[in-house]
C-alpha cells in the first residue's frame, strides 16, 4: 500500500521524504502543545521509504547479526507496514527487550534466529514468546571512521 497525495510531497519534488511527514498544519480545535517542540524530521530518499508514516530508524547494538551484514552501531530502517515472512530480518520484543533477529518459518513453526556463526542458531524457539515490532527494510553502515553520529 503506497498511496501518496500530491499535497504531501515536499517542495523539492520526489527526491526526498521526511520520516515522518511532519505536518505544518495547525489544529482546527485545540492548538497543539507540540507546536513549540516540532523538529525537522529525518530525511531519506523517497525510493528507499515507500511508506513514511510506518517507517522508523533504529540503532543497532551488538554483533549477533554479523552473518546478515549488520554490525554494531549500524542504523536499521524498519517498516511496520510490511508483513514479516520467512527469512526476514525483524525488530522484535524478546524478553522485554528490543532486539534484531532473523525470522525463520518452517512449516507452521516460527522461530527467531541469530545470524552469527559463533552463536547458537536460535534465540527464540517459539514465536509465542516474542512479538514482532517491524520488518527491517535496509540498514545503513558507515565505512568512514566516525567521530560522531549525525554528521
Amino acid at each position, binding site marked *: 500500500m503506497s498511496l501518496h497525495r500530491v499535497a504531501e510531497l515536499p517542495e523539492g519534488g520526489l527526491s526526498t521524504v521526511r520520516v*515522518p511527514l*511532519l505536518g505544518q498544519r495547525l489544529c482546527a480545535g485545540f492548538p497543539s502543545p507540540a507546536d513549540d*517542540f516540532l523538529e525537522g524530521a529525518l530525511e531519506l530518499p523517497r525510493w528507499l521509504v515507500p511508506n513514511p508514516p510506518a517507517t522508523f530508524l533504529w540503532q543497532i547494538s551488538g*554483533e549477533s547479526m554479523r552473518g546478515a551484514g549488520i554490525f554494531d552501531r549500524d542504523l536499521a530502517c524498519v517498516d511496520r507496514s510490511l508483513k514479516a515472512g520467512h527469512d526476514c530480518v525483524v525488530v522484535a520484543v524478546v524478553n522485554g*527487550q528490543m532486539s534484531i533477529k532473523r525470522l525463520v518459518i518452517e512449516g507452521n513453526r516460527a522461530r527467531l534466529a541469530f545470524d552469527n556463526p559463533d552463536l547458537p542458531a536460535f534465540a527464540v524457539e517459539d514465536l509465542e514468546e516474542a512479538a514482532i515490532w517491524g520488518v527491517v527494510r535496509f540498514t545503513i553502515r558507515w565505512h568512514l571512521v566516525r567521530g560522531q553520529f549525525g554528521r
Partner: protein
Amino acid sequence: MSRALALIDGNSFYCSCERVFDPKLAGVPVIVLSNNDGCAIARTAEAKALGIKMGDPFFKIREMCRSQGVRVFSSNYTLYGDMSARTNAVYRDFSPKVEIYSIDESFLDLSDVQADRRVELARDLRATVRAWTGIPTCVGIGPTKTLAKLANHIAKTVPDLDGVCDLTDPVAYDHWLCRISVAEVWGIGRASLAKLEALGVDTVADLRDLDPRPVRKAMTVVGERIIHELRGLACLPLELMPAQRKGCAVTRSFSRRITDRAELEQAVSAHATRLGEKLRRGGLATNHVSVFYHTSEHDRGDPMRSVSTTVTLPEATSDTLALIKAALLGVAKTWRESGERPWRYSKAGVITTDLMRMEDSPRALIGQMDRERSGPLMAAIDACNARWGAGAVVPARAGVLEKRDWNTKFEMRTPRYTTQVSELPVAVA
C-alpha cells in the same frame, strides 16, 4: 448519501507513544506529566485503575507512584507531535477529508462510504494505525460532530464494541442515546448540567427531545445547537483548512522563581526567539509585540505584581533580533527594582495578536527594516537549528540552551526517538 463523520483518537495518547518504543511499559501503569512536571495529563488504564485522576499534582501522588510501580514521564512533545503526524498520514489514506482537531483527535468524513461498510472500514483503520504506528485508537461514527464524539466515548467505555461505535446506524442510535448520561455530551459543562438536571434531563435522549427554543434562553445558542446536532442536523462543518492564524504566543512557567532582571531579560529574549521561529514557519509577520511577566498566585503572602505592555515596531517583521529588541524594550519600560521583599516572578511570555502574511505587509516610510539582509540570516539560523537540533544557534541575549536553568523542566523525558539521529531507539543484536 447521508452524512457520516468519524472521530478517531489515540487511547491515552501520550502514554501510548511512550509504549511504542519501550516494551517494558506494556501492561504497567504509566503517566505523563505536564510542563515543569506539574500534573498528570495522560494515564494508561492501569494508572486510572490506581485512582490517579487527570490533573493530579505530581507532588501529591509521587509516593504512591513509587510504591505502586507507576512509570512517570515528562512530556516529550517532539515525539507526540511526530506520532500525531504519522497517525494523521494514515487517516488520510482512508478519507481525503480529515480535520485535525487536536494532537490526538481527528474528524474523518466517511459520507462516501456505504452505510453498511462503515464499521468494517473503521475496524480496518484502527488495525492499520495500530500496525503502522503502534498507537491504539477508538473510532466513533455519527451524522454530526457531536454524535461522532459521543460515539467515540461509547466505543471507549464499552469493551464489547471493540473500539468502534456507529451512531449512523438507527438501531445503535436508539439503543445508546437513552443509556448514556447527558454529562458525556460534548459541550455540556458543569453549569449547563445543573440547569439540565432542573429540567429533568438525565440521558442524552432526554436532551435530544427537549424543545430547543426554551433551551436557547437557559443555555444560549450553544445549547440549541447541541440539540440539533443530537438529532442528526449538522451545525458544525468539517474544517479542512485551518483558519489563518491571527495570533501567536510563547509563554512559559519558570522552573523556579526569578527575581533578577538579567535572567528575566534572557527568558523574554528566548521566548521572542521562539516567536520568530514560529512566525517564519508560517510565513507570517507582526508589528506589535506584547510582553508580560507576573508573580505566582500560589505564593500567598509574597508581594504580587503582574505586568503587561505592548511595543509597536515601525513595520511588520519576523526577524528574531528585531523581536528581541522590542521585547526587551517592553521589559525596560516596566521593570521596577524590588524593595526589601522582592517580586518573585513565576512566568513570562511574548504574544502577538495581529499577524499578517510577510509578503502582504505594508512597508514603512520611516524606520524601514533591512529585509534583504535579515531574511537570509534568519533562514540560515533556521537551517542550522533544523539540522543540528533546536537551540544549536541562538542569539546571545537568549542564552545558551544548556545554561538556561530557569527553563521549563522536563526531567523525566524519554529520548526524541523519531526526530534525532543521536536519540534513536536501540535494538540489541
